[in-house]
């Protein structure tokens, strides 16, 4: 009846995941109870869960990423403590548990923190920057988000029902094959990535189409803000690379479920094929993450320096060069698998070539600051911190791209330090910069600067205290994923890394405090102008938070830095007083399709993991029925009458004018 599922799936003998799972469960139930008792459920359902508004979906993506960041961060803390104490002892985590933790940490941080965070910011900002009212496929957008949430849910479910993968974040065969991993862990891993992978792919298709096809008047490609360009590049990579991941995991699943032999030891299977395929997705993946971060820094550096981005065209070229070359370097992840010197050298050099456009970007940000009037608000601190950190990460990255150096450093703690150096220093700093930069746009009030700066400094210093020791341990021959060790020389470095982790934990507490304090002081931090940072691109041209239709009328773009130009123009012309002619606006209707789809996807995924076949059929039928119902809908848009648009927009304009004239009077 329930396939492989029985009471032994609950890990009663392992207190840590059980307690963690229990705490999370109680927290979720508590929140749900609070929501129901307070009567917020109808509001949540109508305004958020079924919302197809790109801004709200963006906010939900970031919220998902933030929650999962706490989970992935807890894993990191547990790993650092384990390695700090597991010298000539077993530490406090047995191997079967420790191995789940590092697998979950990597999987969660990449797929359910970094990805939703950047996709959320792109969703929130890109349509605003393009001066349009929505993304190309609003309902699909909601489906994409909810499928990502499904994947996250399944990963967390593995805490209390069954186990998670113990094979690392990429589940290399043959270890991940049924022979060597007979448990459900790898199935949890693979199905949650399959489901969330579909979500990511539709998000990618949606954003590519949006940037290519939906832009306001005059917003030609070479007038788009840099963030739109990096969004385009990143989502092109998603569309090209994620099908590879889906196909690769599908092959692994066929091996595990139907006795195929794609990657098995026996019957002609070949694990090297998996290595090639997974990295053909995996390497573009890191650029999928870091390109949007580059876009965020471009916006932040330009805004807070009070200057347009230096060498804009050069930046566009560099972005697209990275987009293309990133597909040609995957082999550098396994120089040590016995490839010939020509192959190794060519892939090594190709990997280094990416450092050229990346270096150009650094210099262009540098010269954007040159001659600027730099305001060190929190987002700008993240940007400068990023530039310094990322260069070091780039240095060690180019170093491991040199095959003979990689022969010593492959899979070592040095490598672990390197990719954290670029992912934390690049993607995470970028996500935090974007978070503080666009938070007022999403919610209408700024974040507390004191706590924001504290979070930056703790993260920045904590990062180096954690990862310099890992670089050092790598130079002492320490390899990754060790549950315990007997080498005395490694021990002090593991101790310092744990201290660094403590600083990083304080940084997370600062971030949470920052949000809480800001919500309590929101009236003082209110952004009434819609333009709290003296911004340059169109998202600042509308109110904060923007009305559901974003812009009452489509802005007319006459050059780069569209909103900056509008502001200059308005100053010269003593403000435009002519009232625009308001028109009815058609907006897409909210739809529960995404949520219902994800519900059935969760059921199907869970049933597949536990081999509950009747439930698989039920889940698939449900998902298909949802699709049919959506496809046969009659009305998918509603009209906001011109009068309502006028009322909303006039109120916004009035407030803005008052502020401007007050400022003028002073």
């Amino acid at each position, binding site marked *: 009846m329930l396939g492989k599922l*029985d009471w032994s799936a609950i890990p009663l003998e392992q207190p840590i995941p059980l307690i963690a799972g229990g705490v999370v469960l109680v927290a979720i139930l508590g929140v749900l109870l609070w929501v129901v008792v307070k009567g917020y459920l109808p509001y949540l359902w109508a305004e958020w869960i079924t919302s197809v508004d790109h801004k709200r979906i963006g906010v939900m993506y970031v919220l998902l990423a933030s929650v999962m960041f706490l989970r992935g961060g807890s894993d990191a803390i547990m790993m650092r403590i384990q390695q700090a104490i597991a010298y000539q002892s077993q530490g406090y985590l047995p191997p079967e548990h420790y191995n789940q933790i590092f697998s979950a940490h990597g999987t969660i941080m990449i797929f359910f923190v970094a990805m939703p965070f950047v996709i959320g910011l792109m969703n929130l900002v890109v349509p605003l920057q393009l001066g349009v009212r929505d993304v190309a496929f609003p309902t699909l957008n909601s489906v994409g988000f909810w499928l990502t949430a499904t994947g996250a849910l399944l990963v967390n479910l593995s805490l209390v029902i069954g186990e998670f993968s113990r094979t690392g974040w990429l589940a*290399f065969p043959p270890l991940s094959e049924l022979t060597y991993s007979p448990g459900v862990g790898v199935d949890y891993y693979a199905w949650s990535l399959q489901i969330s992978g579909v979500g990511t792919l539709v998000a990618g298709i949606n954003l590519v189409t949006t940037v290519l096809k939906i832009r306001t008047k005059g917003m030609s490609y070479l007038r788009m803000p840099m963030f739109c360009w990096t969004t385009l590049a990143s989502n092109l990579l998603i569309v090209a690379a994620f099908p590879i991941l889906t196909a690769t995991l599908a092959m692994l699943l066929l091996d595990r479920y139907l006795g195929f032999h794609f990657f098995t030891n026996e019957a002609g299977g070949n694990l090297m094929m998996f290595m090639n395929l997974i990295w053909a997705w995996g390497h573009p993946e890191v650029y999928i993450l870091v390109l949007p971060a580059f876009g965020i820094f471009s916006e932040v550096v330009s805004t807070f320096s009070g200057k347009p981005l230096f060498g804009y065209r050069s930046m566009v070229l560099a972005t697209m060069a990275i987009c293309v070359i990133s597909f040609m370097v995957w082999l550098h992840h396994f120089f*040590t698998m016995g490839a*010939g010197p020509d192959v190794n050298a060519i892939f090594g050099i190709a990997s280094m070539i990416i450092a050229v456009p990346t270096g150009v970007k*650094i210099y262009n940000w540098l010269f954007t*600051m040159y*001659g600027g009037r730099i305001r060190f608000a929190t987002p700008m601190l993240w940007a400068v911190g990023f530039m310094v950190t990322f260069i070091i990460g780039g240095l060690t990255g*180019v170093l491991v*791209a040199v095959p003979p150096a990689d022969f010593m450093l492959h899979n070592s703690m040095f490598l672990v330090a390197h990719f954290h150096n670029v992912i934390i220093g690049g993607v995470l700093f970028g996500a935090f910069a974007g978070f503080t930069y666009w938070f007022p746009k999403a919610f209408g009030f700024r974040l507390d600067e004191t706590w924001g700066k504290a979070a930056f400094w703790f993260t920045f210093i904590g990062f180096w205290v954690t990862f310099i020791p890992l670089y050092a341990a790598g130079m002492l021959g320490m390899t990754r994923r060790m549950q315990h060790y007997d080498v005395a020389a490694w021990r002090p470095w593991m101790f310092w890394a744990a201290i660094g982790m403590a600083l990083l934990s304080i940084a997370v507490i600062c971030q949470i405090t920052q949000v809480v304090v800001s919500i309590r002081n929101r009236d003082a931090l209110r952004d009434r102008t819609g333009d709290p940072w003296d911004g340059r691109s169109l998202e600042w041209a509308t109110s904060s938070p923007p009305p559901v239709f974003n812009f009452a009328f489509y802005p007319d773009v006459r050059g780069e830095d569209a909103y900056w130009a509008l502001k200059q123009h308005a100053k010269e012309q003593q403000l435009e007083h002519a009232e625009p002619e308001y028109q009815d606006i058609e907006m897409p209707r909210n739809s529960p399709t995404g949520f219902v789809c994800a519900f059935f996807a969760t059921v199907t995924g869970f049933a597949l993991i536990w081999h509950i076949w009747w439930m698989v059929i039920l889940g698939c039928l449900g998902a298909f029925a949802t699709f049919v119902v959506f496809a046969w809908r009659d009305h998918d848009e509603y009209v906001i009458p011109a009068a309502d648009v006028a009322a909303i927009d006039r109120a916004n304009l009035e407030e803005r004018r008052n502020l401007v004239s007050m400022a003028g009077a002073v």
Partner: protein
Amino acid sequence: MNLLDPQGPVAVANSTILVDSVFIMLTIVVPTIVAILGFAWWFRASNPMAQYQPDFVYSGRIEMVVWAIPALTIILLGGVAWIGSHQLDPRAPVPGTGSPVRIQAVSLDWKWLFIYPDQRIATVNSLTAPAGAELNFQLTSSSVMNVFFIPQLGSMIYTMNGMVTRLNLRADNEGKLQGLSAHFSGDGFPEMMFDVNVISPLAFPDWVASTAKTDQVLNEDSYKKLMQQFVERGRPTYRLEDPTLFNLISTQHIPPGPGPQVTSSAGRPHSGDHDAR
């Protein structure tokens, strides 16, 4: 296990390239970091001395320089990578004194088996080699992937079931080194450390002779026992009965290791875990 304390020519060359590459890049990276911090500080809004130039958005000369600096660095490093990859190809010969020693390494769950086919002996978790001689490694795996790595001797290489990888190394100084697996291979992975005893070439024949006196025999049967999942804390040695054993393993005439026994219907494997501790 310090990478910067190499004990053989391969490790010397690897670490030289490593250090040189870092210094080449530092010549660019350090000035850039200084410039970032310097510009950020000087052009702060509160500095009345800094000149605000909102129109400084393009300069052909600067563009040229900023594309050229990383490009030139990469051309230089690309040359290092190309030459290094060829000279330090794991299969490239590493000439030494005396006749080369053939060693066939098999990664097992979770221990290392070293077969000396010419000497007709085998050891587990302990590799003994004469100083100065070329060491010809042939490597394979009984089950999952591992990486064979002796940090102070240089280049690591994957071991894979059904395949043979090749690696040539040389140890120049007598002494005790340590090797490990550099690719995660399951619950007993941290126990896959092995001793490397580099002894004088004169002592090597004696070591071979004394090892050959053991009464434990390595043949297909005892190998099959050895490839079960468990951790070996001792350093057993064997007399090699069949010098083609490695070929039988690498060509899968002996099927791959069995993996854990499933004992629970929920699919939680238990065997192996306890041995691993």
